[in-house]
């Protein structure tokens, strides 16, 4: 049989777009080289923070938060509020500048006094020079992404194939995708392969300037209650939250090693140590916590760090969605926009033309 659209990549983007397209009456099929939600969608630190989103993406992030809240317990959603901390004058300046812009862009971010901070988060270091707070911030459990979307796809009657890497794409009147389980035919094609977008687009002769960051996440043993909100740092080099079971999840985008093509990345001790040191500086009681596991995930981006969301250049009927920068938070929402666009409807907010010039600009 022939599908209306084949979607390569079964992460948040691929699955959520499939759901929107099915709502619009299309018959999609989702193909993943591994299992659903096992890439960045399933191994990130789960932070849902408006304080670490790019100013220009704030309208998307705000709507993304609403969708995570609706998904609720099934994805481990918690609206805990979040503090971002500065430990010296330079960081305080950075914090004030960045969070003011984000507040102007619509995020409910406020600056809090030291006294307020100590009442709300007594286990934080006393060396905080400035802090901001956002009541909308929180987290979800990224390891539930795969099972959540599997259930949603099944409920919607959407076809999906796992362990089904696409090895060649032939474009005649339709797309013919070669997979180990046979050829899949579809009228349209959406590339939503995250850090693997570049080799997938190359099969269509399109060079997407996609690079992958190798973000590190660690989890500690169960600890007594130390923090009830998400904790971040003015530089963005720390995100931290304590889960209901007492474990503390520590991220911040410190770089491990490896490439998507080589499979899983590896943790690097020279970046893990400063990551953990910063966490311990923020919450000194973490000094006695043992780290049980550290791992990495690949976060795709393009040179201007804006999303790829729109028609794939030079290939009629092909689309691309990825590199969102905050894709976990924004993914469910931008996928709706993408779905509307493919359905021929005007998206509620603008998409991001993958055929643009990618001129670098300061963040």
């Amino acid at each position, binding site marked *: 049989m022939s599908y209306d659209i084949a979607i390569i990549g079964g992460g948040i983007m691929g699955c959520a777009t499939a759901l929107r397209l099915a709502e619009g009456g299309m018959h999609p099929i989702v193909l993943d080289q591994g299992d659903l939600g096992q890439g960045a969608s399933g191994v990130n630190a789960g932070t849902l923070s408006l304080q670490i989103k790019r100013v220009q993406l704030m309208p998307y992030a705000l709507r993304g938060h609403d969708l995570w809240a609706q998904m609720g317990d099934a994805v481990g959603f918690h609206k805990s509020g979040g503090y971002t901390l500065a430990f010296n004058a330079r960081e305080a300046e950075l914090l004030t500048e960045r969070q003011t812009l984000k507040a102007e862009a619509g995020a409910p971010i406020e600056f809090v006094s030291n006294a307020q901070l100590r009442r709300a988060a007594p286990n934080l270091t006393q060396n905080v020079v400035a802090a901001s707070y956002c009541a909308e911030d929180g987290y979800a459990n990224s390891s539930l992404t795969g099972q959540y979307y599997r259930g949603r796809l099944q409920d919607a009657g959407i076809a999906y194939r796992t362990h089904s890497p696409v090895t060649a794409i032939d474009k005649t009147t339709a797309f013919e995708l070669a997979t180990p389980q046979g050829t899949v035919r579809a009228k349209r094609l959406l590339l939503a392969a995250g850090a693997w977008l570049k080799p997938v687009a190359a099969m269509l002769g399109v060079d997407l300037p996609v690079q992958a960051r190798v973000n590190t996440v660690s989890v500690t043993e*169960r600890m*007594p*209650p130390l923090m009830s909100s998400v904790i971040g740092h003015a530089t963005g080099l720390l995100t931290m939250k304590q889960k209901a079971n*007492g474990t503390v999840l520590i991220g911040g985008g410190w770089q491990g090693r490896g490439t998507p093509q080589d499979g899983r990345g590896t943790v690097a001790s020279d970046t893990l140590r400063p990551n953990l040191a910063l966490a311990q500086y923020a919450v000194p009681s973490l000094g006695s916590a*043992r780290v*049980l596991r550290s791992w990495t995930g690949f976060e795709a981006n393009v040179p201007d760090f804006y999303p790829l969301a729109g028609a794939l250049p030079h290939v009629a009927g092909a689309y691309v969605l990825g590199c969102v920068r905050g894709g976990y938070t924004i993914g469910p929402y931008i996928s709706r926009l993408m779905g509307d666009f493919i359905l021929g409807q005007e998206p509620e907010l603008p998409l991001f033309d993958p055929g643009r010039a990618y001129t670098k600009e300061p963040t």
Partner: protein
Amino acid sequence: MIRLVPNHASKIKRRDKVGFTFDGLRLEGRRGESLAAALLQAGHLNLRTAPFGDAPARGAFCHMGICQECAVRIEGRTVEACRTELTDGLVVERVS
């Protein structure tokens, strides 16, 4: 599959009894077995207190290095009893 606890069944000397202490109590086990197994056989199922919550008594659950419910202190370090090989004269204390 992940195997955090090596299979060293052949290393366990069932006839070779060794002594160790748990919070000062003198106990006996078999050389080469896991500390968690020796404590279990000596009747000590309650190995630590929960870090928080209303179910304070905790004991070895997974026996494979994941659950952290058998964490004990040895020579100033917190270690999992299930991943610690029993040796003669081991001094074991509860995590405080």
